[in-house]
């Protein structure tokens, strides 16, 4: 019998549908108008579809989890939170792209269409209950990302970044597929509810458990690659510094939201409190923290620094996953809060880098922004300095910023899971990360201005966005929403 899908099935996927329809609309508009004028329309259409997607996700946020398409997808407060965050990420990318479009050759309808396709697929992976569907979503947004990463061929190392990202991404996809095969072999299904039932059902033969575990671990590996978790992180700095700034910001925030959305889904179907999962997550988290923080210590290129910082933040969010095994631990919430807040911090930091790049471009200098460009900017451009300071303090996880509250949340989740040692090792990494972000503050406020040093000016939409983001980070640091 052919299944009959009702409207309510489609309502669950509302945000995804809004994104995909938006992408098609953008492409059609571009075909019809084919002129410089169409840019405005394209931007408006993108913004509109993202707003609709965000509102639809927002509307479902408080409702009960509902399954659709015969259980193929299932939303819920956590998944809707991720979807809402993804829509917001898209809007922020739009703000950045608008600003940098002219200098970085992003004024093509294809850019916006790819962004919307990627977001639609990212949202889909956070609600998918079927690993095959997850794989399709994963590949869809990855393909869009590969193209986005290579969008500006004139930018430094852009092509190298895109190729590197593509090749390594293809490997990750293969891992995921292999994992799927193992899981199917052991469980006879790739549906998460079936896997979960198998684990909670009567005891299985050890070889079958091994096969199932191996499959899940392979899938986790693929997602860890997308998240830039160590030891699968080597592509991150190259790709971030090679991609244009709006794309780098989108990569860091969007990929994290989608990746952790998928990871939480996958891990909640398996007994995450039992070996080998806690060990794997703990090792992954600590390696990632070390790689990110130690790597960032030596960077002078701002985008590479932010790339390593993005790796480190993946590590903190992984720490939060340690709490998943315990019922009612709020670990999923903590990880959601962490990635959402990270998105805000990352966009703030990347927006400030974008402003700096703009200044450099205006002076005819064709080079990436380095730490030295920030020297003496804190007092010369107070608002730029303060916004950067808020971003750095928040990334370092110090109060009174949102970064502290969410870091507190993930460590609380890990301790709730009983992982004291891992939490202690992980939290000591914060000392290293503090050193990383203090270096930026040192450049901003404590070193003299260099003759050629240039920060940036905050004007227009970018200025409004940065000031708003900084204020939100401060406000959430004092009055957290938990």
């Amino acid at each position, binding site marked *: 019998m052919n299944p009959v899908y009702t409207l309510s099935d489609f309502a669950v996927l509302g945000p995804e549908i809004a994104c995909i329809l938006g992408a098609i609309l953008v492409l059609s508009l571009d075909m019809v108008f084919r002129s410089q004028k169409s840019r405005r329309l394209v931007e408006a259409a993108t913004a509109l579809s993202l707003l609709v997607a965000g509102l639809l996700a927002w509307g479902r946020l408080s409702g009960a989890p509902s399954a659709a398409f015969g259980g193929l997808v299932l939303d819920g407060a956590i998944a809707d939170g991720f979807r809402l965050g993804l829509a917001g990420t898209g809007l922020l990318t739009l703000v950045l792209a608008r600003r940098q479009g002219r200098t970085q050759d992003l004024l093509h309808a294809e850019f916006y269409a790819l962004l919307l396709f990627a977001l639609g697929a990212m949202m889909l992976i956070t609600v998918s209950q079927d690993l095959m569907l997850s794989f399709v979503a994963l590949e869809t947004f990855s393909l869009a990302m590969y193209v986005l990463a290579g969008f500006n061929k004139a930018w430094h190392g852009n092509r190298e970044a895109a190729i590197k990202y593509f090749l390594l991404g293809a490997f990750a996809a293969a891992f995921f597929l292999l994992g799927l095969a193992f899981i199917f072999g052991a469980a006879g299904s790739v549906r998460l509810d079936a896997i979960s039932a198998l684990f909670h059902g009567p005891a299985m033969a050890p070889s079958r458990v091994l096969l199932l575990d191996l499959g899940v671990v392979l899938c986790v590996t693929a997602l860890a690659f997308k998240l830039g978790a160590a030891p699968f992180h080597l592509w991150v700095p190259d790709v971030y510094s090679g991609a244009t700034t709006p794309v780098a910001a989108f990569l860091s925030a969007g990929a994290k939201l989608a990746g952790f959305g998928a990871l939480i889904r996958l891990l909640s179907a398996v007994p995450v409190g039992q070996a080998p999962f806690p060990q794997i997550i703990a090792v992954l988290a600590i390696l990632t923290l070390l790689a990110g923080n130690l790597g960032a210590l030596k960077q002078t290129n701002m985008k590479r620094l932010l790339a390593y910082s993005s790796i480190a933040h993946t590590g903190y969010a992984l720490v939060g996953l340690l709490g998943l095994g315990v019922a009612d631990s709020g670990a999923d919430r903590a990880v959601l809060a962490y990635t959402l807040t990270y998105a805000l911090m990352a966009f703030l930091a990347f927006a400030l880098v974008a402003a700096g790049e703009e200044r450099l471009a205006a002076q005819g200098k064709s080079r990436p922004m380095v730490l030295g460009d920030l020297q003496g900017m804190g007092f010369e451009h107070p608002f730029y300095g303060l916004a950067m300071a808020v971003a750095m303090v928040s990334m370092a996880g*110090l109060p009174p910023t949102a970064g502290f509250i969410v870091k507190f949340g993930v460590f*609380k989740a890990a301790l709730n899971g009983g992982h004291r040692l891992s939490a202690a090792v992980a*939290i*000591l990494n914060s000392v290293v990360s503090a050193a990383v972000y203090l270096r930026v*503050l*040192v450049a901003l406020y404590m070193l003299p201005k260099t003759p050629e040093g240039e920060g940036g000016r905050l004007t227009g939409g970018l200025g409004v966005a940065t000031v708003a983001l900084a204020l939100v980070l401060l406000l959430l640091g004092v009055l957290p929403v938990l």
Partner: protein
Amino acid sequence: MLSLIIGSSLLSALVVAFGPWGSPGAVRRVSLGLSLVQIGIVVWVLSQMDSSAGFQMQEQVAWIPALGSSYHLGIDGISRWLVALNALLLPISILASWNAVQKNVRAFHALLLALQAMVYGVFLSLDVFLFYLFWEASLLPMYFLIGVWGGERRLYATIKFVLYTLSGSLLMLLAMIWMAFLARKQLGHLSFDLVDWKSLAIGVDVQRWLFLAFFLAFAIKVPLFPFHTWLPDAHVEAPTAGSILLAGVLLKLGTYGLMRFNINLFPEAALLFQRPVLLLCLIGTIYGAVMVLVQTDFKKMVAYSSVSHMGLCVLGLFSFTLAGQQGALLTMLNHGISTGALFLVVGIFYERCHTRDLSQYGGAIAKMPVLGLLFLPVVFSSMGVPGTNGFVNEFLCLRGAFLANPLLGAAAALTLILGAAYMLRLTQKVMYGPVASHAMEELTDINARERTSLGVFVALIFVLGVFPNLVLSSTEASVQMGLDRLLQGQPAAAPAVAPPVVQGSLPSAPRAKLAETKGKGSEVLAFSDLNGAEVKP
């Protein structure tokens, strides 16, 4: 009312930062005015307190219910004088930077006020999450104060300061979360409330880890002996105002934390670790004093004398006697005054000579008779000469140490001799003797602004030296309550979970001493008789 203290201070910082002040002079005057208003507010609030033991003027508003954390403030005998000290030191710091700070004046004063607000928050929070928020937030203003307005090696010093402090406090954060989960297990809900935490029964095995995590954070802040290396760097590079506040109040955050958390929350672990801690304090006290003797840098001498004094303070604290703990509390206050005054004097000299190298100093008294006059009481206070405030607290701390262990007391008393040696050497070198360098010949005596701030310190040195009961009588009840809790008043369930370690030889000694101390309580407090007594070895 307590919110008024924190809120007005924070508001002052914002007013200074964003107000329409035209010139640096206006910023200085406004900040000074606001800091004086702050003193008025603090005096008014503190005058409403009585000398009972528990927390007073409590305020509690729901804040983050999901964490069981509320905006909960309160004050008791232990925190009241630290709050007062915090209010007092700010105008003096502003006066001390009047000429010394010339760039980014607005940001400098806003940060001073913000730092003050954070420190108030630490002393007044009864919710531990709130406490931690203020604790960490107080790092940032000091980071900028040292890093932007500091000396030549300021970047090294300020990053070292932040990273050291942070590494301790992050583990404390984990311990706090652990405590909140213990509260959930025993009370049925997550809680970060100090009052809730005091009612928890915690097994010694767990207490031990929690104690160590909290201890590390506070020991770095105090700083106790092996964790002190950030302090000389930070002090030497900090601007004068930064040094005054660092020594005056920021170090007290550590001793306050030890008293409020380590001793109060983990009594059995505190007894268990008493000896190692006392040993560290003893080493720190002597080591700090010896280090002062070999310094050639004026400011570094004062910095190391802080290590010595704070070691003695914690020694008194961990003697677990009324005398010792009262002495420790008094040391927190008096060290803020005398070391604050010493850093002020260092700043006065540095502004004029632009060197801290002691070999360049000598014969200053000829050019600066007024400073010479006001400097002597400060030196005496730091040495602990009777009649000055320093005598009272050193005596009480040593008495506590002696009651805990006579040998320890005797060894710690060495610090009196060493203290006299280094302070007299310092005075001799700087004030008397031949004029050592060209810079000394062009010295001018201190002006009215400097006289005022130093005069306030000197007045307090004598007032607290002669009438220590002004402070001691209002702190006694709170200190005694903490001690009772430590030595016997443990939660009902505790003995059941207490493993045999507690019945070992260690804790019985302090318990026996409690009786002794209690008997001598009245004697300790009738202090005015002892003032004239000669105890100098």
